[in-house]
């Protein structure tokens, strides 16, 4: 058991999920929230983000690389589990299964989301503004897809944050882990409200 590569990969997976991906998701949802203040406010915020200095490097090192590592290694983790929520229907086990299902769904959702927005902008086929999202979300099917996507992301982050605290040995006792559950539940609710409010602002 001297080879600790797997250990380091799992720890990296846990770390990247919170820093930077969790921070990025939070920032992304907050910037989206400008949509509730009108077209002008959203476009101004989107323009600011799209024109940050060294934006391509920020995207590569803060978003693309960590996200891809987290996604692909996460798929491996998800498919090596043998889920058993039927006979062992304890809350943590159900959240364990939900973490894996939302993770798999998010790989599909985020791939589609990036293709539909950032990729279209990159090939010059569209501009990242209020109109773009308004067009996408005018389709009721896509709107539902985005609602599920946002809720999956906020759940996966909140529950992942709970696991992060355990994985790094921050919350040890049963009591600490219980309070951590309350805290991450709050994170889930707050981020979900922010995310869903922004989606509704486009329709």
């Amino acid at each position: 058991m001297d080879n600790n590569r797997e250990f380091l990969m799992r720890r990296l997976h846990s770390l990247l999920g919170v820093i930077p991906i969790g921070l990025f998701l939070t920032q992304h949802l907050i910037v989206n929230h400008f949509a509730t203040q009108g077209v002008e406010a959203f476009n101004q915020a989107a323009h600011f983000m799209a024109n940050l200095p060294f934006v391509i490097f920020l995207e590569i090192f803060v978003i693309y690389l960590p996200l891809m590592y987290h996604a692909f290694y996460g798929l491996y983790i998800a498919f090596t589990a043998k889920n058993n929520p039927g006979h062992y229907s304890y809350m943590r086990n159900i959240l364990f299964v939900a973490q894996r299902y939302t993770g798999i769904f998010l790989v599909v959702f985020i791939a589609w989301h990036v293709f539909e927005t950032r990729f279209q902008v990159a090939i010059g086929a569209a501009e990242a503004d209020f109109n773009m999202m308004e067009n996408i979300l005018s389709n009721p099917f896509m709107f539902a897809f985005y609602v599920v996507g946002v809720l999956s992301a906020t759940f996966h982050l909140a529950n992942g944050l709970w696991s992060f605290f355990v994985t790094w040995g921050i919350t040890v006792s049963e009591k600490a882990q219980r309070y951590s559950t309350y805290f991450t539940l709050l994170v889930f609710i707050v981020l979900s409200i922010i995310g869903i409010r922004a989606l509704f602002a486009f329709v």
Partner: protein
Amino acid sequence: MGEAAKTVIFEIERQNSTDESSYWEKFELPYRANMNVISALMEIRRNPVNMDGKKTTPVNWDMNCLEEVCGACSMVINGKARQSCTALVDQLEQPIRLQPMRTFPVVRDLIVDRSRMFDSLKKVKAWVPIDGTHDLGEGPRMPERKRQWAYELSKCMTCGVCLEACPNVNDKSDFIGAAPLSQVRLMNAHPTGAMNRDERLNAIMGEGGLADCGNSQNCVESCPKGIPLTTSIAALNRDVSIQMFRNFFGSDHMVD
């Protein structure tokens, strides 16, 4: 005449040897007051006739202490892994379904080979080395409150229920499961055992070690001895985080 004699129905997943496929067999036995799953299996052994009235081979199972301290009679009862000696028929929904713990290789019927757990205990060095060429005298004293706490961890009987309940212990993964990890905590808590704590921490940082835990927490819910397995796992995570930094950045103290 009074009402028909009360009976108990068992559905048992049987298998003749490790490589053969399994099959289900039903048995109906006369009810006796206070019977447990073991006494029912003994009844089947006495009269191995299935529900179709056909004579069959007696069902094989493992047992030893009959008081939930040895772990040998563990099996899956109505979907949940537990000891059959403390599974009282009066408290179980019928038909009572018995299955082997398939996380382990099935030897025959309900008997499984739990060797992998004993191999894991060797891998993580779950012992306190005291042998030497001369008498080393008494070891350091252990605080009484710590001893009482450690006693709870020492109740582990390597029954395998926590591995059977764990979604991450399966044929696709090398994860050693909660029981051997908890033993690392116990041995590291011992004042003499702590002299080798870095060796154990490095061992559980290896393949199939601590990092494979997915926090489903089924282990702590299922442990028949009520051992705080997930607390131990989180505490080991903390120890291992520090060990990881020590290994990477270097440290001038090896053990503490």
